[in-house]
């Protein structure tokens, strides 16, 4: 019997764990409902691509044409899957 190949599972991580310069696709918003809702309303919903530009603690991110500042607490609500590593 041929060996079954494990399906490709992209790495899931919090936005706070995403390195600066990397991009991820939002898979899930978790935590306080109000914060999740505000994030969705501001365009950070499931399946959106978010790029972490810079920052420690408070993050600077890009979501399509919008640049967002997210404090650590807010960024903790966003679970992404890595789609592009940090550019060298």
């Amino acid at each position, binding site marked *: 019997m041929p060996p079954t190949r494990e399906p490709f599972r992209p790495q899931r991580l919090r936005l706070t764990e995403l390195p600066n310069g990397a991009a991820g696709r939002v898979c899930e*918003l978790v935590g*306080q*409902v*109000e*914060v*999740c*809702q*505000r*994030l*969705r*309303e*501001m*365009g950070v*919903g*499931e399946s959106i691509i978010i790029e972490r*530009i*810079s*920052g*420690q*603690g*408070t993050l*600077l991110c890009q979501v*399509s*044409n*919008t*640049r*967002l*500042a*997210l*404090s*650590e*607490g*807010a960024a903790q609500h966003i679970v992404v899957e890595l789609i592009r590593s940090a550019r060298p």
Partner: protein
Amino acid sequence: MALPSHIAAPPTASPAARAPVYALVGNPNCGKSTLFNALTGLKQKVGNYPGVTVEKKVGTTYSQHGQPITVIDLPGTYSLAARSPDEAVTRDVLLGRRSDTAQPDRVLCIVDAANLERNLYLVHQILDLGRPVIVVLNMMDLAVQAGLNIRVARLEKELGIPVIACEAVNGKGLVELRLAMSRPDLPLARHAWGVPAPIAPAVSEIAASLVENDLKLPLIARAEALLLLTDQDSVRVSGSVPLSARTTEILQSWQKRWAAEGTDWAGILVNSRYEAIGNLATEVVLRAGTVGPTASDKIDAVVTHPVWGWLVLGVVMTLLFVSIFTLAQAPMDWIGTHTALLADWVKGHMPAGDLRDLITDGAIGGVGSIVTFLPQIMILFFFIGLLESTGYMARAAFIMDRLMSRVGLNGKSFIPLLSSYACAIPGIMATRTIEDAKDRLVTILVAPLMSCSARLPVYLLMIAALLPNDRVSLVAKVGIMLLMYTLGTAGAFGFAWLFKRTLLKGAPPLMIMELPPYRLPGVRDVLLQMLERAGIFLRRAGTVILGISIVLWFLAAYPKAPAGATPTQQLAQSFAGRAGHALEPVIKPLGFDWQIGIGLISSFAAREVFVSTMGVVFNAESSEENTAPLRDALKAARWPDGRVLFTPLVCLSLMIFYVFAMQCMSTIAVVRRETNSWRWPLFQTLYMTGTAWILTFIVYQTGRALGF
């Protein structure tokens, strides 16, 4: 070229028909204020929504036939699910929930063309309201720069309502917009949006209850029902009609049921709207490939850099303060001279007597003392407006957020605290953008600890008395001054930390803030905003100060001393003098005598009044700029037992007292307005003045023990 159908339609309204009232709504940073100013020019009225500290801006523009059209500029918001008092007002006006403002007939939705999808979210909610809507696609130039080609005609066709492409900054598209606004009939949107199946029954039931129990119109009821489901913390502001008990009950029972099933109803609703918007956007927006880093990206690389960012912020802040204190000097002197001239003129034209003294010393002198600060406040607002309009302010808040979060505040508290260095009143007014009520309250409570410009004259006088030798290096004087500023700032941060851990315990601060692209500042908008703020400052502070000045004048003028008494003798035996004597046991442990006590009492109106009161008490003609004669008079002052009154230690103690004490009636009045209760301003006065007493006591007694 044929005009689009909505523009070409002939006007058919009868002349008697009432001109429609438009509400102007949009996301923050979409150019809403610029469009409002471009439409209404100087025909604006700025007031307050009763009971809430949200500005109500109403302006008049004219139709193509010269008929006046009223435009209400509503606070910017990303969604009708409100998160701050400002956003709650927008929601309530649009839904017709406010008793003081009728529901607008039509809505002008301004949209940032470069961020179409996100901006359409609010439009999508507004289309639910069933009012005629005009969509204004602003910042088309930025959209082109971002490589986006927006098919305006297609969007218009899809939505079925007028869509006007516009660049409000250069006035492009305004003629077309005015024409569309002049139309007597506006079509309703083709807004066939199906509520997602899991929550559709709830929306129907809540909407039915809203019609039956809250007497809403069916169309509005559906929009409200949808909104109630996403109105998470439902910010209620006074002046808004509350929901009926029956509707609340239905809403809560649905929410309980979904919570038990694990249905994320709010998430489903938002995502479903975005799905509809996404479908629309694929029809309307053509992306011309990827563009490289924009100018904004390149500037951000420096301005938000962990090292360079701080450096830029430092330079900007230094420039701000240098300009506040240097550029304002000449107009401040001018105001000072002219209030004095006015007082002299009145003196020359009125017979001597109490009424004349009341007008010259009480009213003109008192109001003059606060108007003197107007130039500084105008420069401050000009700079803040400039920094906001270029997009830098949001970056400053981003850089400061990490530091502020250590004491439990977020980056948005930075602007109010910064403004408070000039004057706590605009600082406290600037807290309105802070979404979290507790964060806002903490910022209001600590803002007056930032050394405002009214403390400067006191610091200057005390430094002059402390270091009387003119040869003492400037560095020492500046050093003491900086020490006072640092003490105040440290106090503000320390108390913020304390309050966030005890009294106003809340979740760790969260900041979700959009950083708008950099733009050239709209000087006209900045100037308009500056004038508007200056007007508010004058009205608010002016009325309070006028009242207090008259009371203080009365306290210092009565009871009358026998004829021929000097001003010093008069003051000594007046109510104020007696109060000073009564206060002496409390302030003696701080090294202050009853004469300083009079200064503390009179400067409760405004801190800088301390200097002029000392002038009267010690009978020295002096001004705020030239403290030399008063300095010498202070040096000569003695306790009854012959000890020197103003020892260096007492001067230092007095400065420390002024760093912390809440010596400002206007601030108390503004805090009362902003918090809608007397509880917080009273608490603030007690904690600040209490801290001032304790710290001054420690410094003075320690100094004494060490032999100073």
